[in-house]
């Protein structure tokens, strides 16, 4: 199966991959997303599972149904997803990183400068 993993329910993975594409800008706001059947064929999954993933995003207001034409990326979807992900960022990335750092005896000053270095070498902005 292309690109899906064991750990998360399939329909959640379908929703997450679509959300990733929206955040990355590969699925721009206002464009049509693949239909349930197209997703089912591509991932080789039951169409009901694909529909469940899509409906998750519809419920969140990220996708909108246009009757008879299909499913589209809602206006403001990217900003909304970004806001949600920023909220989860500390919990999902910072907390485990800080926990591992303290396990390894890296104090917070050292951790901060490590982050700066990595960010610099990736061409990111520090300030």
């Amino acid at each position, binding site marked *: 199966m292309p690109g899906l993993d064991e750990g998360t329910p*399939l329909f959640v993975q379908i929703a997450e991959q679509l959300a990733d594409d929206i955040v990355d800008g590969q699925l721009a706001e206002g464009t049509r997303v693949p239909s349930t059947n197209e997703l*089912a*064929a591509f*991932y*080789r999954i*039951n*169409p009901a599972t694909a529909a*469940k993933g899509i409906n998750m995003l519809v419920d969140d207001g990220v996708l909108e149904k246009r009757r008879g034409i299909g499913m589209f990326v809602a206006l403001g979807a990217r900003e909304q997803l970004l806001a949600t992900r920023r909220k989860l960022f500390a919990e999902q990335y910072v907390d485990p990183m800080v926990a591992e750092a303290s396990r390894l005896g890296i104090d917070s000053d050292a951790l901060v400068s490590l982050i700066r270095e990595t960010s610099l070498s990736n061409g990111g902005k520090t300030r």
Partner: protein
Amino acid sequence: MTPTISVGELTRRYRDQAALDNVSLTVEPGTVTGLLGRNGAGKTTLLRIITGLEFPTDGVVKVFGAAPAENDAVLRRMVFVREEQSYPDFRVGHAIRVASWFYPNWNAELAQQLLADFELPLDRRMRRLSRGMRSAVGIVIGLAARAELTLFDEPYAGLDAVARQLFYDRLLADFVEHPRTIVLSTHLIDEVADLLEHVVMLDHGRVVLDPPADEIHGTGMTVSGPAIAVEEFVAGRPVWHRQRIASRASAVVPGPLDAAAQARARALRLSLEPLSLQQLLVHASGIAEEKVSA
């Protein structure tokens, strides 16, 4: 809506051996159901009763709302592809033509396509086909029949992994275009897991699991990490399986785990991983015990 299949408190005994023991389940129209279990779990017996080939010792079976046995109106709406089905010694093309007379929704175009996909020689006699090719003929008939209820019982004896993938792909593609009720009995669980909307797991003639496929997730969890932490986490829980190597251990426990348990596992630096459907089957008897004690 009337369920396509409804089975109530079904028991089938052979002498003093119960092949099916108080089985109840329903299959909704337009779904793909996986009938999963080890060999001898009762899958074939259940399908034979559903298709009217066999009678229950006790209990009720309804297909499209009516008893299937000797009921032509019901039987014409279904196709049953059996494991190692035997055919009269026709040529392949003739066997397909004969099948086309039986099924009201038969689609000749799809049959032609599938015969080509599986590279079946139309003028070869059935007896001269390899086992895999004979299985492929069954698959062609099962799909081209486009019956409202399509039942496959381990339809792929002798088919290699590539041919099985072809079967799953064609099944899914045609199901999407022409939704119908499909029941797929198999022990190759991980191969079909993603195709299923509904899972029925049998063990020793009993239903041990019968949820929508989405909800299976987390029915069993593997907890692994430092042995001491694993022991602390599983204390007071049923444990289906334990493993230990040096200072590390893993244990399989029933799920789903609530948020508190997950947080506790994180605090103990344990990793949690849900069991796959195939792994769940390995623990089927554990699941059965769980249900009895619950």
